[in-house]
């Protein structure tokens, strides 16, 4: 039976899971930035000037 308490439990579980997913997102961002750095590019996610130079 779905009671307010069960909904609360689900909501809190989702909230805690969201923390973990936020950590996974940050980890992906760090890995992508470090990979760009290893390739000699700017670690920042968007660098239009650099992309422009590469295209030319």
């Amino acid at each position, binding site marked *: 039976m779905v009671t307010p308490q*069960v909904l609360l*439990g689900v909501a809190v579980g989702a909230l805690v899971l969201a923390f973990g997913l*936020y*950590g*996974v997102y*940050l*980890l992906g961002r*760090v890995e992508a930035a470090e990979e760009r750095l290893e390739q000699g590019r700017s670690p920042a996610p968007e660098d239009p000037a650099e992309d422009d130079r590469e295209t030319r």
Partner: protein
Amino acid sequence: MNRRRLRAALMRALLLAPGILVGFAIATSPDPLGCPGAQCGWEYPLGQRLLYVHVPLAWVAYAGFAAAGIASLLVLARNQAGAGRSLRSLVEVTTLFSGTALVTGLAWSYEFALYDPLADPKVVTTVVLVAVLAGLWALSASTPPGASERLVAALTLMGTVTVPASWFASRLASPHPDFTRPESSLDPVMAAHLIVASLGFLILFAALSLLRNRVLALEVDRPW
């Protein structure tokens, strides 16, 4: 395996560990003995397990705010980019943790019809603590880039007074449960579960702060 991959594997383990520790604490905790009112059924033990989320979140948020206070001192004393990054990452994760601690505490109080959260000094001081953190973000957003760091550091330092205020409110005149009161006690089994869950949330806090710090170090020149 190079150092980058090793560090990424370690961070993955740090992100996985809290789920295991908190899940273990919640899954193996014994059902509470008492029953406060008419709502008692199988839902009451479920609601009681919110304690293994609310209490550790609150403890770690207090520690996070205190750590942000130390980082703000370093910003004001040395004005180094590293201290500014630490301050920003600590304030970010502390905002998440303290806001969630407040919400889970209010959700837990739903079980107790006689408990009025708005009349509880503990809740009021914690709302002020969260409001101070919200104020830090408002201040940061409303000042020019580069100028906000020292302002945010000064307000963080002043805001740390809300940590002892919130912490001690439940030891003084508050209906909020507090096992550190002389007349209170905590079941050793429950204490062990709380310690395991707290360790999980402490690891999660450290992992999120470190990752956020690294993102700021890689992607931006000035964190504020």
